[in-house]
Structure formats: C-alpha cells, structure tokens
C-alpha cells in the first residue's frame, strides 16, 4: 500500500497531520473492521436466527429466543459453573505459584537470570503441546505423576477420569504454562517497592514476615488485582488444553462456556444458538475487561 506525500499545500499543519495519521491508520483499521467488527456485528444477526447449518434449511428470524433458551439451558449453566471454577481456581494456583516464584528470585544472586529464563519456558510453548504432555503425565494408571505420588505413600488420583479431578488437572496444566507470567509481573512490582519503606519497617523492629504482610503486600495489591484480572480474561478463553486433554469430559465435567459454544457451533452446527452462547460469554468477558480498565486507570 503506497502512501503518497501530500502534493497540494494543506490549509493548516494540523489538518495535514490528521490526514497523514488517518492514512497511516487506514490499512490496519480496514483489516480490523472487515475481519473483526463486521463478523461481530454479523454474529449478533446470526444470534437472532435459528440457523442449523447441517440441515440445509434457510435461517429463520426468531428474535431473542436463542438468548432465552441459553438462560434456560442446564448445560449452559453447568458450563458457566465450570468456567467459574477454572477461572477462580486457575487464578489462585497461578497467583500462589507466581508470587512464590517471584519472591524466590527477587534478590540478585548468581545464576538468577538463567533460572528466570528457564522458568519462562512454559509460557512460550503451544498450549496444544502442553495438553498432550500433561495428558500422558496425568495418565491414571501409567502416568509418572501418580507413580511419584505412590512412591511418596499417597494414593493415585484419577486425574482425567474423575469429574472433579479433571477440572483440577486442567487448572494444573494451564497453571504450569502461565504461572511464569504472573511471576514476571509480580517481580516487576516487587522491584518497584521502595527499599526505604522496607528498611524503615526493619528499623521499627518488623520481622521479615511482618514486612511482607504489612508493607510489601499492600503496596503490591493493585498489581496483583490487575494480573489476576488479565489471567481471568485469558483463562475464560481456555480451549486448546481442554480440547486435547479431556475434550470437555469425562461427560461434560470440563465443558466450559467456551467449549460448549464451540461444540454447539462447530460440532452440531447450530450456528444461531452457538452465536447467542458466544455472545453471552463475550458479555462476561466485557464485564471483566471493564473492571480491569477501571483498575488500570485507578493506578495511573
């Protein structure tokens, strides 16, 4: 796309500035409008229709019926509950691991940067691959994790065949991939805690534990909330790992809102109903994004 320099002299510099900026923005904006905004608008239209792609019948307008059906659909509420577990449990696991790891590598010591590099590896791996390796590690009878648990005198956990354990298994696999991200963000936060404050608390006789709970943690609270919200928004979209490890099962035990919308849309091809489902999820996401933005604005 060629961008021409303005030939005729514009009336004012500001006007020329604006025209130049619009020119710069237009190719990207065009892509976003065509491939995201337009499909989203079309998705709303679809969600007001009964549209069974597999049945070869034309779509019929049904108004808000799909949305009413969503609200009365026990499968949807089950999926919403599982999504909530995954998001809350996932945030808790990632926060505890990430915060712990950040505290461990906060001071400088020899080999610190090498350790941080190694800890960051999981975040760069394709989630599909993460799913496959955990599927084998968590194998009920032959997996190494249960073998190690047995060696420690603990009993085997039916990771992928028990409904509750399967949710935990996915939280763990996803947590393995993303705790390093939380670590990085918390680490940046820890580095910004003024040394004078912790020193002053030490002079006042506060123990290390007290300094952490009374000084460091309150200062880090805003960044903790932000990182938890970011992870919640991301984990609500979680698909790859679930698809590969349990496929939503056993039964529908790990079928999140996202998986359910996918199944309705791309397995049963109920396009209208799946659109409505995905819009409900979108609204939930927007609420979380809205909270995130207000937190970000509060900080700055």
């Amino acid at each position: 796309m060629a961008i021409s320099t303005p030939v005729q002299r514009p009336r004012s510099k500001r006007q020329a500035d604006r025209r130049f900026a619009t020119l710069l923005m237009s190719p990207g904006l065009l892509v976003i409008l065509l491939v995201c905004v337009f499909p989203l608008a079309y998705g709303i239209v679809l969600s007001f229709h009964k549209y069974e792609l597999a049945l070869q019948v034309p779509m019929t307008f049904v108004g808000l019926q799909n949305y009413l059906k969503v609200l009365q659909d026990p499968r949807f509420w089950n999926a919403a509950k599982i999504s909530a577990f995954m998001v809350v449990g996932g945030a808790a696991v990632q926060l505890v691991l990430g915060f712990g790891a950040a505290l461990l590598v906060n001071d400088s010591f020899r080999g610190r940067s090498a350790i941080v590099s190694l800890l960051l590896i999981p975040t760069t791996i394709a989630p599909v691959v993460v799913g496959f390796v955990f599927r084998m590690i968590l194998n009920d009878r032959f997996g190494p994790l249960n073998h190690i648990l047995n060696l420690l005198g603990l009993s085997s956990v039916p990771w992928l065949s028990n409904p509750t354990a399967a949710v935990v298994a996915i939280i763990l696999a996803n947590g393995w991939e993303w705790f390093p991200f939380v670590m990085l963000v918390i680490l940046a936060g820890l580095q910004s805690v003024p040394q004078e404050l912790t020193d002053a608390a030490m002079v006042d006789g506060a123990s290390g534990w007290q300094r952490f709970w009374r000084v460091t943690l309150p200062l880090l609270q805003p960044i903790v909330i932000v990182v938890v919200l970011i992870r919640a928004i991301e984990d609500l979209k979680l698909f790859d790992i679930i698809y590969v490890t349990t496929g939503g099962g056993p039964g529908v035990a790990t079928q999140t809102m996202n998986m359910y919308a996918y199944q309705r849309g791309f397995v049963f091809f109920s396009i209208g109903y799946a659109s409505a489902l995905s819009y409900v999820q979108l609204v939930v996401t927007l609420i979380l994004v809205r909270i995130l933005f207000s937190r970000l604005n509060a900080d700055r």
Partner: protein
Amino acid sequence: MRRRAFVVRAAVIAVLLLVTLFPLYWMVLNSFKRTGEFFTDPPTFVPPRLDLKAYQEALQYTGGKGLQDSLIVATSTMILSVGLGSLGAYAVARYKWGGKNFILLLLVIQMLPPVSVALPLFILFDRLKLLDTYQGLIVADTVFNLPYAIWLLQGFFQEIPIEVEEAAMVDGGSRWQVFTRIVLPLSKPGLVAVSFFTFIFAWNEFILAFIFSRSRVTPLTVVIPAMVGSDTILWERVYATSLVAIVPVIILSLVLQRYLVRGLTFGAVKG
C-alpha cells in the same frame, strides 16, 4: 541462620525448576520410546534408546507439511501485523489518532473470546471460499495480533523524543520520511519485540487454525491433535512433532529474553 535460609531457598528453587522442566523432559523421553513402552507400570523414566527415527518420520509424514505451513502462516502474520501495526501505532503515538478510547477499544478486541469472532467468520469464509486457505488463516490470525502490535509499538514510538522528529521536519523531511528514516530505525527493539511476539502467537495458535483448516493448510498445532484421532497412535511421533513445534520457539525466546519479558508484562506493568 543465614546459611539455613540459603539452603531452603536453593531447595525450593530446585523443586520449582524440576516441576517446570519435567514435562519437557517427558516429551523428549517419549520421543525415544516405541509402541508398548509408553503405558507401562512402573513408567520408564530413562530413554530406552537414543535415535532420531521418530523425528525423521515426523518430518516425513504430516509433520513436514505442518512445519512448512506453520512457518508460512506465522511469518506472514508477523509481517502483516508488524507492517500494519507500526503504521497504526505511529498514528496513535504521535498524532493521537482516535484518542484514548481507540486504544481501549483495541485492547477489548485483543481480549475477545475467539469463538465469538470465529463463528461468524467461519460462515463468511465459507461463502468467500477462504476456508482452508493461507490467506484466510493469516488474515484471521492478524486481526487477533494487530491490536497488540499497535498497542506495544506505540509505547516504543512514544519513547522517541519529539524534538528529534521536529528537527527532521525543520530540515525539510516529510512526515512519511520522518517515520521511515528516523522513527522506525530508532525503534528497532520495539520492532523486534513485536515481530517475535506476533510470530509466536501465530505459531502457537490453535483454535482459529483448527476451525478454518481442512486438509490443505495444516500448521503443526493442527497436525499434532490429528495424529491422535486414528486407532493406532504413534505416540513417539506425536512427541517428536511436538518438539519440532516448541524447540524453535524456546530457542528464540532464550535468545530474545529481554523482549519476551517486555512483551509479556506490557500493559500489566507500565512501559
């Protein structure tokens, strides 16, 4: 007392590293096993043999095509995202195009659940004959990358002192020349970071590739799950292909560590 604290910390770090690296080891280990050696009680923790047979076969069969398609899709997505993204980012950074709300809107797009876009896009792509084509997948990947590219790059552009650009304008440079000859060369770290990130995003992306591909365009993330669909699963090939999919990215991220850190924490942490 000091010494004990040191030992405890070293031990905890060692456990953390073990937990982080064990799944990687398990993948490598499994790429050396053969049928009948995967599901044993107790599991085998040591490679029964060291050979590259699984890797050769992986590349010979669907893995080779997967690698090729992953490279094509990820590289094209990267070029498009960085190209369009840097143009847009400069409009936002220097000319405040669209104001503050526009930036927020971009972030919202980044955070949308892919299914809600993929579903209508699937219908549209179907009608436009864009399913199972490179163009379709690349453009879909780009749209989920572009907001991030614009957002990250405008941060880098804003770090350039405006005086540098004004001086160039006074010397008779056009706006376009200032952008291409002054701003872009000065923003090399930003361009590297964003290139790296958009590449990894498209390389690791699964749901869009999975939904939009059939048989002609099959990146590695689509190839790997497809290997498990059949009756006899060659697990060594699954893990060899998985390693083909992750090792390049791991090496890149170790080399470009500082960009990785900046790209990951951007947004959550200022700058």
